[in-house]
């Protein structure tokens, strides 16, 4: 089986995972209700501050990352509990395409959540952002979902050694993205060393590109920020691919695969 075929079959497994987790009813009334409530909260915070510019800043940032989570980290741990991790380890190919395929379905979940939030803010709160900004938001949100996925994949590989910590890691990472990457306050609000961390986290540059689109800045500014986000995503993806097999090998070497 070539890598692409492994990825495709694993993606189908991921789709089944997703369907076990959510059906259209629970997704609409459970998940969407949660993130739309969150969007409404940011509208209220903007009103509390009494500043339209800040309200718009909060809405763009929070709508763009509305769905972003790092759920792929947890999915990687599921392989352990399903008993399939050891089977993947003994297979003659790299584990990377299998892990990437099973977790990739969550990218669509994040993108769908973000777009639903933009539509909700437009319909429910009469928010009328510039069309060019919305057009930039489509590739921007897709790119930030892809780069966040790459980081999740890397962390999923690492957490394979201590699966019990997966939910804590997911939440800390999601909080870090929400707080540090320019979602609610500009990255420049934070000290320089925090800004350096934000620069290598996914979301920061894609969000800057989206904001540049909303502000009507020149196309090259948008393209530069998108390019930086793509670089960050590729960096994390490379690390992930290098780490997945190494972690599995380490687990095989010390016999911990079945016990962690």
């Amino acid at each position, binding site marked *: 089986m070539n890598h692409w075929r492994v990825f495709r079959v694993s993606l189908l497994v991921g789709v089944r995972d997703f369907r076990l987790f959510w059906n259209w009813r629970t997704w609409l009334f459970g998940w969407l209700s949660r993130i739309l409530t969150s969007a409404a909260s940011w509208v209220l915070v903007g009103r509390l501050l009494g500043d339209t510019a800040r309200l718009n800043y*909060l809405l763009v940032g929070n709508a763009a990352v509305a769905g972003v989570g790092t759920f792929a980290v947890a999915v990687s741990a599921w392989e352990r509990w399903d008993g399939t991790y050891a089977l993947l380890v003994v297979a003659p190919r790299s584990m990377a395409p299998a892990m990437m395929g099973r977790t990739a379905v969550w990218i669509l979940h994040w993108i769908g959540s973000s777009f639903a939030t933009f539509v909700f803010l437009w319909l429910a709160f009469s928010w009328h952002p510039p069309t060019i900004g919305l057009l930039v938001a489509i590739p921007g949100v897709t790119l930030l979902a892809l780069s966040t996925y790459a980081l999740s994949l890397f962390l999923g590989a690492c957490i394979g050694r201590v699966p019990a910590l997966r*939910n804590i890691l997911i939440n800390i990472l999601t909080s870090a993205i929400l*707080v540090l990457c320019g979602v609610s306050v500009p990255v420049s609000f934070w000290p320089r060393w925090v800004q350096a961390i934000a620069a290598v986290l996914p979301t920061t540059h894609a969000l800057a590109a989206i904001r540049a689109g909303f502000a009507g800045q020149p196309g090259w500014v948008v393209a530069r920020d998108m390019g930086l986000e793509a670089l960050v995503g590729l960096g994390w993806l490379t690390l992930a691919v290098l780490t997945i097999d190494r972690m599995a090998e380490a687990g095989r070497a010390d016999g911990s695969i079945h016990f962690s």
Partner: protein
Amino acid sequence: MITRLQSFVFRLWVVARMQLRLSRRNVEDLLPVIVMPLLTFGSVAIFLDAKRVDLLGHALTASTLLTVGQMGFFVGSDLVSLERRDQLLELMVATPTAYGVVLAARIFVITALGLLGVVEGWLIVRFAFGVPVPLPHAPELLATLLATVAAASGMATLFSALFGLARSSRTFQHAVNGPFYLLGGVLVPVAYLPTWAQHLSPFTFFYWSADLLRDCFRPEAIHSLGSRLAIIVALGVSFGGSGVLVVNRMLHRLRRDGALGLS
């Protein structure tokens, strides 16, 4: 009579101690305590960036209520579902103590652990942002926190009963907790909500707790403290009492029909 009361209190104490031990060993139980205060960074950053130091009490109120609320809604209300999954519910039901009472006591302990969120939120504002946060009404703050824990436990007991036995708790948790926080004015006072929504707010204990907590962070005197505390506790007792009744009645029916392990 005294012996029966003593025996009841002793059983509650044993249950509470057991839950404390279980939670200490299970990092998942403490997830909201670890994670929710991190949101303080976000809200405090927004207020400081907007030069609104006067709103820091709002951020601390939100951090506190979200942590206590999540401990109740996510961890506490999951107890029945988890016991069904692990097939422990049948054993628990077979013991002579009413399961509803055991459940309520365990949820109270879990929710009370959420109080650590207050300390964490305060430490974040004080040391990560370097902003002093005076506590001008410390005794009133403590009373409000205890009443809030009682109310959150009552609510979580009812949710646990209603949705744990229906095996759909996770979806429900996702769907209801956000609207509850929003309607309760946890981060932003309900005066900023549409008028129709403001009419619903007083039915949530968050509304009363959030208002009182924000007052506790302000230097001005707090008005009607006793009656506001009484409303929070009354809401908690009515929700918790309903939860105990519902769980006992549903279990009774399942046992009578021989369907406890099958439903």
